[in-house]
Structures are given as structure tokens and as C-alpha cells.
């Protein structure tokens, strides 16, 4: 199914070189027959999905279809009850050490940012590197400033999250994940809590990130973003993966009726 290997010709980025030398077509996230229930409610049904290194995937689908649950299973914010999830060669089990190991490699950006309001922006960014990766404070701060520059708000380093706009907060949240030097970045509707004029500044940062060759799984309704960035679009409905395809194919020749209905809904306006 992972025939849509990302074309990342412009590999100007240094991080790619620093990562583990693994063959490009190897899957970094592998979900096999994953099932999950909330009580009696079957949220994820037989999910089979592989995400390759450097691949950019957009997940879309109607509200309640299980998109958030799907990506939250990848870093064990939700527990799956059946099937296998392997991230970067480590299978997710109840072993807390393995869970923490995977979380170190997987960055996540949330709809509501989830910044730590009692810490300054810089402290938000250095917390993980210092405590999880045991980096010296000075190094962590230097890295943090580099990423703040990359998301274009270095001047906000000493402010508190509550003093920033939504778009700035989300960019800080992205920088916070990047500071952990993750191998995969998960985004759960990163722009849907933002005012329209702030959506672009966040999407721009995400597009730049995609250009550096980061592996990304993005739940979003921003179809423009999906068109420009995604290597593959996945459509979910009722807890199932209904369809996955190249963006052009996906948008112009959707196979399933449900996809067509969804697209006509979302592209109407």
C-alpha cells in the first residue's frame, strides 16, 4: 500500500543525515489490524497502515471518524486493544519504557497547543531536551533558539504562552516538538482552533517542515495543504480507512462513494 514514496529531491536538510541510516522505503510506523474500542463503541476497525520515512500523510474524514484516535494510538495517548503498532522498530506494548522510548522519537502537535502556561516559551522548548534527552541546559537553549527562529518568533522566547496569539502559540508548539529532534511528527488538526488570519502562518511553517524531509502525519481539513504537501491522503469514516491515494488521484478521482460525498461537502465552500 505504501507505493507513494515521498519525492524529497531537495534534501538540503542536515537532520536527514543525522538520522539513523535506514533504507528510505522502510516503514517507520506500521499498524497491523489495529482495533480499538471506547467501552462498547468500536472506534478503530482493522486499521492497516504503514508510514514510510520522509513520507507526508494527510488524514481526513468526517468528525468522529476516529482520526484523532488513530494518531493518538501511535504514541500511546490512547491504547489499542487488538493488532500491532510498531514505531521505528519498537512494538507498542504496556511496557512503559518502550512507550517512553517511542514518545521520545515521535513529536505531537495538538489542536489546542497544550503549551505549559507556567513556563516561558524558552522553558517550554528546553524542558524535553533537558529532562528527557538529558542535554545540558546551554545546548538545549541554543537548539531552542534555532527552532524559534525557524518558526519566526525568536523575539518571543521569554514571554509566557498566555501572552502570545493562537498562531504564535501553535508555532511554539511545533518548535517544542522539533527540539526533541523527532523522527516523526503527528499533527492533530493544528489549525482548527485558529482564526483564519493565523492559519496561514502555521501552515507555512508546516510546509517548510515538510520540505526538510520530516516524516509527517497530519490530521487536517486544510485541503490546500493536502494538495501541496501530502504524498498520500487517507480518508477515514466510521473508524475505517476507506481510501488512500495520491492527492491528485484522491481529489479528482475518488474511488468510493463516501469519499465523494465527503469531498463534495468539504470542497463546496
Amino acid at each position, binding site marked *: 500500500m505504501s507505493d507513494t514514496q515521498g519525492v524529497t529531491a531537495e534534501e538540503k536538510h542536515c537532520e536527514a543525515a543525522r538520522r539513523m541510516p535506514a533504507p528510505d522505503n522502510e516503514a517507520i510506523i506500521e499498524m497491523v489490524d489495529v482495533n480499538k474500542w471506547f467501552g462498547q463503541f468500536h472506534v478503530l476497525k482493522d486499521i492497516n497502515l504503514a508510514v514510510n520515512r520522509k513520507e507526508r500523510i494527510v488524514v481526513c474524514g468526517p468528525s468522529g471518524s476516529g482520526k484523532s484516535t488513530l494518531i493518538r494510538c501511535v*504514541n500511546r*495517548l490512547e491504547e489499542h486493544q487488538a493488532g500491532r503498532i510498531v514505531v521505528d522498530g519498537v512494538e507498542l506494548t504496556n511496557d512503559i519504557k518502550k512507550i*517512553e*522510548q517511542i*514518545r*521520545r522519537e*515521535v*513529536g*505531537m502537535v*495538538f489542536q*489546542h*497547543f*497544550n*503549551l*505549559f*502556561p*507556567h513556563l*516561558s516559551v524558552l522553558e517550554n522548548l528546553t*524542558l*524535553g531536551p533537558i*529532562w*528527557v534527552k538529558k542535554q545540558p541546559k546551554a545546548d538545549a537553549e541554543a537548539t531552542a533558539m534555532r527552532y524559534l527562529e525557524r518558526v519566526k518568533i525568536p523575539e518571543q522566547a521569554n514571554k*509566557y*504562552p*498566555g*501572552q502570545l496569539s493562537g498562531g504564535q*502559540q501553535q508555532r511554539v508548539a511545533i518548535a*517544542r*516538538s522539533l527540539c*526533541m529532534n523527532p523522527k516523526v511528527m503527528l499533527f492533530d488538526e493544528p489549525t482548527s482552533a485558529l482564526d483564519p488570519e493565523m492559519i496561514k502562518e502555521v501552515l507555512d511553517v508546516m510546509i517548510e517542515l515538510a520540505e526538510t524531509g520530516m516524516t509527517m502525519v497530519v490530521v487536517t481539513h486544510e485541503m490546500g495543504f493536502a494538495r501541496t504537501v501530502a504524498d498520500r491522503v487517507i480518508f477515514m469514516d466510521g473508524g475505517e480507512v476507506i481510501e488512500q491515494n495520491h492527492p491528485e488521484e484522491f481529489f479528482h478521482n475518488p474511488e468510493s462513494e463516501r469519499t465523494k460525498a465527503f469531498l463534495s461537502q468539504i470542497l463546496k465552500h
Partner: protein
Amino acid sequence: MTDPTTGMSNPEPQAARKPPASSVGVLGWLRGNLFNGWFNSLLTILALYLLWQVVPPLFNWLFFDAIWANVPAEVCRENREGACWAFIRERYRLILFGTYPFDQQWRPLVGVLMLLAVIGFSCFRRFWRPWLGLVWLGALAIYLTLLGGGVFGLTPVRSDLWGGLPLTLLLAVVGIVVAFPLSLLLALGRRAENMPIVKAICVGYIELIRGVPLISLLFMASFMLPLFMPTGVTIDALIRAQVAIIVFVSSYLSEVIRGGLQALPRGQYEGAQAMGLTYWQMQRKIILPQAIKISIPPIVNTYLGMFKDTSLVAIVSLTDLLLATRQSFADPEWRQFFVEGYVFIACIYWSFCFFMSKYSQHLERALSTGHKT
């Protein structure tokens, strides 16, 4: 904006004008707050009348007609209008230090001053470093050594002779310092859904202790604990009372902190977990700092109550500040001046409580970091 005279759009921005005189200044304030409407005016006048009835006589009794000089009790008895502060001047050492040997009272005095200095020092956030814990341990060790003696040529003083303010402060400060971490653990334990046994123990502890009056805990600690001890092993009455206070306060405090924990959005946990923090790192760096911060007002509330409740140790015959004061009335000479004694220690209790309250307000402001996300 539209010009009211021409009805046309006015391109010039309006200059800011002064508000009407009736809404600013002393008069404006009086009118707006005390005399807006006949009902409020009536209430204001009534309140002023009551104040006039109460405040001048009170001040006369407290200050203007009071006897401040160091005079014998007969002189005080003749002055019916005012307070007899001569009584305090006569008996303050008994009130402040209780039954502590008279010629050794410099020791608790030095101890209390040192403890106050350490407390003052700890109020500055820049000293909130791990070594502050060592400073506290050292301070408590010195305090106990000063009071107990037996080393460095200090005469030994048995703990049942300790009394007054040094005893009250010891019970309160150790209670505050020890109950705090204990209550954090209890609060976290009560929320540990995936550790049912830990959770059950915490819930049981909290609900059991909270449902019992402190007095009965003190009694149980004093009279029942020795029954369970092997014969020959005795625990100091002071320690038993201290344990009862810590146990009692920590159960209340843990519920206060649990309230703070529950007020945190789930996203804070998820943000912390997603970056790979361990449970304890997450609690220490993300969850507890925020939960404690929003719980400051009820925490201080609990502490104020506990500070005053230390006076209950009198029932297990520890001579705290209140009991020492009552003992100072024992002399028939001065017996009738007990009100002065109570006013005096009320001022002491109040000063400590007022300080705690003010400091907590300062802390709330200092820790505030703008809007919540």
C-alpha cells in the same frame, strides 16, 4: 463617527475629554458607592452610627484610658475604664514561654528569632533551591537543640516543660512543612486509577482522618498509641501531638490539592506525555506546579485553620501559647485581667495569619503568567 450637529461624517478624531466631575474624585466616589439611592444612603448612615457607637469606646478602652505603665494590680483594679496592659508587662514571659525554666528562656527566644529569619528567607523565590531543604533541616535541628539542651553545655529541658509561642510555632511550622509533601502524595495516590491498591489506601486514609475531629485524634494519639506500644517504649507527648496534627492537616490538604489537579485540562498531561516525560517528571515539572499554584488560596486557608488549631494540644496537657496564657491568669492578683491576656495573644495569632495571607496573595501575583492556554 458622526457629527451630531450636521449629521455628517466627521473625519477628525475626537480629542479625549474629561469625565464629568460628579463621577470622579472623593465626591464622585461617595455618591457612586455610599449614597446611590435612598436604600444605600440609609444603610450608610446606619453603618456610620454603629461604628460611632462601637469604635470610640473600644479605642478608649484599648489605648486612651488604658494603663500602660508597670503598676501593681491594685492600681489597675481602680481603673474601670481602660485595659490593664500592666498585666501583660508583668506576665509576658509566662505567656510567651509558658513553663520553660525562667533563667533559660533566652534559648527559646533565640530559637524563635532564628525560625522567623529562616521563614522570612524562604519567602524569596530566588532561594527556592534544593539546598533550602537542608537549611530547614539545619534550622529545625538547631531549634530542637536550643529548646532541649543537653549538649554544648546547655542544661537539659524536658519537652513537657516547653511551652508558649515556641511550642505553638514548632507544632505549626513542622505541621506545615511535613504535611505538604505528604498531601501531594496522597492527592496523586487518590488519582492513580491504574494502581487500585494505592488508591484505596489513600482514599481510606483521607476519608477516615477527615471524618474525625482533631481533638479526638489528639486523644487517640496520646492515650491509645501507648497501648499498642511494647511496654517500656514511650513516645514523647509532643511528638504524638505533632504526628496527630500532621496526619490531620495532610488529609485536608490533599483534598485541596486534588481539587487543583482536577482543574488542569487533560491537554497538560498529554502535552507532557507526548514529549516522553516520565510520570514523576511530568508531575514535578508540569502538573504539580500548576495545581499548587491554583490551589494557593485554599491551601493557605487550611494552614490558617491549622495554625489556630494547634491550640487544641492543650487538652493533652501541652502548654501552647493559649494554655500558657490561661495559666498566667492563675494568680488571684491579676485574675480579672484575662481579657487583656486574650487580646494580647489574639494579636500574636492574628499577626502570623495576616502575614501568611498577605504572602500568599503576593505569591499568587508573582506566579501569575497571563492567560491560561
